[in-house]
């Protein structure tokens, strides 16, 4: 198990490195070069040359990349083109805002979806289950910004006028409600579905039958026998959904005008502020990879059965776990790839 986690970690680092290469290569595809971008169109050739020297643009690409990577490893993300501030400093407060938003969404979405999922499983094929199933299907299909706009139209200034729809520095805590709710609604469906599916599977298992046949109280069966065994794969989906949040905040922050990393990214794109774009993309990809890694580790830790055989007969796509196990990369539990797919 330790070995598997180590392999997984190593692979995570490799992926991160590959991402850094892609991000660096993307800037090489820029029309013109960095110096041109900083100084604008009417810069004199002398100044351009001086800046190119300063930025080491005369060196081979490989050397530039190594220097960039070295800086990166020391936490130096470069200097923003548009405001001349070190990017790492500039990103501090947006990152905080984004984390608050993601945290709020996770705090709301997780317990509620777990409860709905478990309850659907208990009421399988009855009214509540069907409603929940249809609801999650609908929510899972609609892009998050559409959910956000519908929320604004219903609860924002144009509709019931309960919550502000645009972030302002002076605003109170209620301005976080709509964006957090949007994100929560966006991440919840896969968690609900997964919780329901695992719960059903567990409730049908032999040990739960055995517990029931023994004449145990249904509550004991549920909380002592069923729920703990359902939590493993679900925890993994939760982690994957949190990873999705890293990318999902962009559109939501843009919509609600929240000064987080997503907003910074969009501003950076508008100003063609390359170091800023690089930093935010790396940051988001980094969070994404890290939380995915965490999801894998949780999956390994929670379900040793998956690690050994990966064979969960009734779960669709269980062959994935088996194959990955064979590859020696890791025994990602059966539903991980599916869960990844649930979100863009």
């Amino acid at each position, binding site marked *: 198990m330790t070995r598997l986690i180590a392999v997984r970690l190593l*692979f995570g680092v490799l*992926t*991160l490195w590959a*991402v850094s290469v*892609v*991000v660096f290569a*993307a800037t090489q595809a*820029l029309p013109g070069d960095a110096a041109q971008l900083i100084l604008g169109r009417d810069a004199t050739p002398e100044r351009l040359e001086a800046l190119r020297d300063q930025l080491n643009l005369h060196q081979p690409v490989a050397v530039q990349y190594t220097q960039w990577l070295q800086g990166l490893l020391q936490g130096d993300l470069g200097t923003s083109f548009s405001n001349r501030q070190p990017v790492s400093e500039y990103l501090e407060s947006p990152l905080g805002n984004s984390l608050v938003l993601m945290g709020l969404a996770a705090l709301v979405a997780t317990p509620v979806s777990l409860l709905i999922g478990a309850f*659907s499983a208990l009421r399988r094929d009855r009214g509540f289950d069907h409603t929940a199933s*249809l609801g999650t*299907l*609908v929510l*899972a*299909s*609609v*892009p*998050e*910004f*559409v959910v956000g*706009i*519908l929320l*604004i*139209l219903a609860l*924002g*200034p*144009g509709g019931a006028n309960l919550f502000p*729809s645009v972030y302002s520095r002076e605003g109170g805590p209620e301005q976080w409600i709509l964006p957090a709710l949007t994100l929560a609604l966006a991440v919840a469906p896969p968690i609900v*579905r997964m919780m*329901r*599916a695992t719960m*059903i599977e567990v409730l049908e298992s032999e040990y739960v039958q055995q517990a029931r046949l023994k004449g145990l109280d249904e509550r004991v069966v549920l909380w002592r026998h069923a729920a703990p065994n359902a939590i493993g794969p679900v925890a993994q989906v939760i982690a994957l959904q949190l990873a999705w949040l*890293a*990318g*999902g905040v*962009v*559109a939501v922050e*843009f*919509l609600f005008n929240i000064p987080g990393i997503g907003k910074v990214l969009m501003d*950076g*794109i508008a100003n063609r502020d*390359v170091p800023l*774009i690089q930093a935010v*993309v790396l940051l*988001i*990809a980094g969070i*994404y*990879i890290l939380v995915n890694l965490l999801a894998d580790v949780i999956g390994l830790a929670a379900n040793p059965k998956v690690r050994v055989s990966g064979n969960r007969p*009734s*779960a*669709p*796509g269980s*062959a*994935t776990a088996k*194959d990955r196990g064979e*590859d020696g990369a890791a025994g990602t539990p059966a539903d991980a*790839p599916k869960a*990844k*797919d*649930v979100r*863009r």
Partner: protein
Amino acid sequence: MSGPMTDPKVEKVAKTAKRRPGLFRTAWGFGRTKVGTVLAGIIVLVAVAGPFVAPYEPTEFVAMPYETGVGGTVFGGDNLGRDVLTRFLWGGWTLLLLAASAAGIGVAVGTVVGIVAGYRRGWLDDVLMRFNDVLLAFPQLIAALLVMSIIGPKVWLIVAVIAVSHVPRVARVIREATRKVIEQDFVKAAEAIGLPRWRIMAVEILPNVTSPLLVELGLRLTYSIGVVAVLGFLGMGLQPPTADWGLMINETRQGMAVQPWPVVLPVTAIAVLTIGANLITDGLSRAAIGIDRGVEK
């Protein structure tokens, strides 16, 4: 003793053989598929027929900015005073076209990669799948934004980026399906009579992975619609003065409190379209799996 071992297998094969030709019919049996088809159908109709019935030109000025209740317009003017209804009717087909081509290309390439990786195995499989994993490390939207921001928002680029981001996801599913197929006897028989590999992949394997393929196509189409719409909404998709649903929302959301229509119409259309597409996909996937577990979409 071998009876109980072989029987279920035979039965399973027989069942798949019987079910496969009827995937659409099985899917149609679910109420949600019908609802989905109706919902998606309405929006597709609006998008395709829209330009022909639009009362004005999409760039014609008919009102004051954000003016409502103007004579001759149903939903008033947008941020520049162009007719909202006209722009709405014009703005759908670009979204559909971009999303459909991105999904089509992505699924096609992903299928090829998945079948090759699943059938050839060995180092090729390893390389392809590791490459897949790297691609998967980017959230789809972020990858698209990175490329758009560097090269600039161009139509072919939007399609290419979304298609590329679909490839690893499709390849993964098709690879699984392929690995199940190649264990079966007819593939071994085809190998035994010496059919070339590409023929085995194209003629023996491909027809047997159509069920997951169709489900993937539906799923990718739904996501493509979402990503194209988000890109438009972020201003990184089609550029003004194109009439495009995503872009419409981006341009007119500032005036949402005064004149909600240019936001409401495209938002509703996108929501109905994605819900419809996803309902169809759900029906297909239920038909393909044959069990109702609620995990699969």
